[in-house]
């Protein structure tokens, strides 16, 4: 049986400073330290007692107190189990490990809230009238792209070649329902007259079928083998091919459908029928065709539309869930995802306007077309590109996605709660609870371990090599009953 598809989403946000001179690295640092500072006040932490220069994977105290942020890269672990850091020249939030797509959705939304809180916290630290703007998008429209990556737990015993061959058709075609939409094209030499609008933010940037890169010659299947857990048992499939979604339905289906497809691959029930002859050509072709009518070539010589591939995958997933059960992705999440996936496919195939409340690219295209018609604008008009950017704007008073009538699938109280609380169903629970309860004693935290300073003893490292240990059901009581980390470690048998 497929192992549980523990999953997470890491998003790099676009960042822009207005009204002040700044580079994106220091702006990202400022944003994050401002947020941590605001959290510190709320939680009443006394950073005066903290020692400077602690390991960057814990709370970096120097940065927290620095009135002027230097360019040292900020890297913090939050009490909800997430990681908030500067990656290259962007603020990035990695959600904690989640056990279902539904949970990942709520944490992805919480990450948006954290960015909004950060923007508000940063404002008083900036010169009068200056502000930091963040966008949950993946490209600046000028050929620069930054990622929204997904991660999925996969059994180490699954042949990697099988994963590559069988997941690729999904990665190439899923954009018909989970693409975030983009005005124009960023392939050299292709103008807005040829591609005025496309399904995906990212498709233009993929040049290889498989590989290790993430910043150059990006591959459809990324081979980074860094499981952050027991490498003898697990892989972490690092997916770099997706768009950051504003639609909650899209996030649910992006993660949920991919988890289902991976479970099927793991159980070897998918097969190679939809193997593509030229995945890199196909991913662009599909993205550049909002009519969804063009066909792509299969290795078998047949030609199929992206929708046909998606219907085939959905049909397989429905039968898989009905036959074997979908425990690996969570039964109720699977049912929700299958229903939505079908609804989105039906909509984009028959009448995209009917799923403008679910599918990002449809919602965005509707705005772009409507605005262009109303004001008589040509395809290349800067206002249309501005609409595209502003669809992803994290400022509540500017965000167009918030106004587009997208259906909500995450409870807003849950979202606010998990800004600070970890998921109960993975090891992130242990990480988050310990950080919240003993911030001074946590010297360092990362995905697969925590290091505690319990006083006079040497530093104590707690390995967390199993993503599904350290959950609320196993450690909540122990943490509740321990007054000090030393007590906790004693109870844990350490």
């Amino acid at each position, binding site marked *: 049986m497929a192992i549980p598809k523990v999953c997470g989403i890491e998003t790099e946000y676009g960042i*822009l400073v207005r009204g002040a001179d700044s580079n994106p690295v220091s702006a990202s640092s400022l944003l994050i330290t401002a947020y941590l500072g605001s959290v510190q006040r709320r939680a009443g932490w006394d950073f005066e007692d903290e020692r400077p220069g602690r390991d960057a994977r814990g709370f970096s105290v120097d940065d927290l107190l620095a009135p002027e942020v230097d360019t040292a890269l900020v890297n913090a672990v939050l009490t909800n189990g997430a990681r908030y850091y500067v*990656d290259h020249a962007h603020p990035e939030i990695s959600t904690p490990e989640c056990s279902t797509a539904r949970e990942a959705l709520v944490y992805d939304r919480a990450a948006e809230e954290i960015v909004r809180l950060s923007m508000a916290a940063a404002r008083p630290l900036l010169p009068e009238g200056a502000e930091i703007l963040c966008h949950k998008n993946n490209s600046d429209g000028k050929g*620069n792209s930054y990622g929204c990556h997904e991660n999925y737990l996969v059994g180490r015993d699954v042949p990697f070649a099988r994963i590559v061959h069988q997941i690729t058709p999904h990665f190439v075609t899923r954009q018909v329902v989970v693409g975030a939409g983009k005005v124009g094209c960023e392939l050299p030499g292709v103008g807005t007259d040829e591609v005025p609008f496309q399904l995906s933010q990212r498709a233009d940037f993929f040049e290889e079928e498989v590989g290790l890169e993430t910043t150059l010659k990006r591959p459809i299947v990324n081979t980074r083998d860094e499981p952050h857990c027991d490498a003898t048992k697990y892989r972490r499939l690092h997916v770099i091919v997706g768009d950051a979604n504003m639609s909650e339905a899209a996030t649910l289906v992006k993660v949920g459908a991919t988890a289902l497809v991976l479970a099927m691959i793991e159980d070897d029930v998918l097969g190679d029928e939809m193997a593509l002859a030229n995945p890199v050509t196909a991913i662009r072709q599909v993205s550049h065709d909002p009519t969804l009518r063009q066909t792509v070539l299969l290795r078998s010589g047949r030609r199929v539309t992206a929708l046909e591939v998606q219907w085939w995958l959905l049909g397989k997933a429905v039968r898989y869930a009905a036959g074997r059960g979908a425990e690996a992705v969570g039964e109720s999440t699977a049912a929700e995802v299958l229903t939505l996936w*079908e609804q989105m496919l039906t909509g984009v195939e*028959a009448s995209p306007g009917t799923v403008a409340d679910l599918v990002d690219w449809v919602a965005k295209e509707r705005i772009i077309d409507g605005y262009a018609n109303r004001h008589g604008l040509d395809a290349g008009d800067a206002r249309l590109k501005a609409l595209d950017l502003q669809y992803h704007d994290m400022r509540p008073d500017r965000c167009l996605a918030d106004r587009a009538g997208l259906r909500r699938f995450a409870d807003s109280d849950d979202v606010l709660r998990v800004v600070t609380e970890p998921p109960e169903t993975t090891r992130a629970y242990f990480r988050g609870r310990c950080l919240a309860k003993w911030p001074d004693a946590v010297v360092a935290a990362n995905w697969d371990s925590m290091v505690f300073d319990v006083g006079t003893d040497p530093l104590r490292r707690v390995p967390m090599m199993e993503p599904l240990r350290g959950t609320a059901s196993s450690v909540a009581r122990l943490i509740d009953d321990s007054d000090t980390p030393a007590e906790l470690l004693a109870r844990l048998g350490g």
Partner: protein
Amino acid sequence: MAERTQKQKPAPSRAEETVDEAPPVAASGDKLKAELDDLLDEIDEVLETNAEDFVKSYVQKGGE
């Protein structure tokens, strides 16, 4: 053809939902148009005032 057949097959409860959620085209079309008009009114108010400058200044470094 195989794909077409499969697509009709999802669990019966879902097939029904799909039918329920496809209202008569004319009615939904009018409603959608009215909604879009409201949305565009709102967008006229919140869109960046100098769109061209905004788009020009929006330069990011590549990431990942």
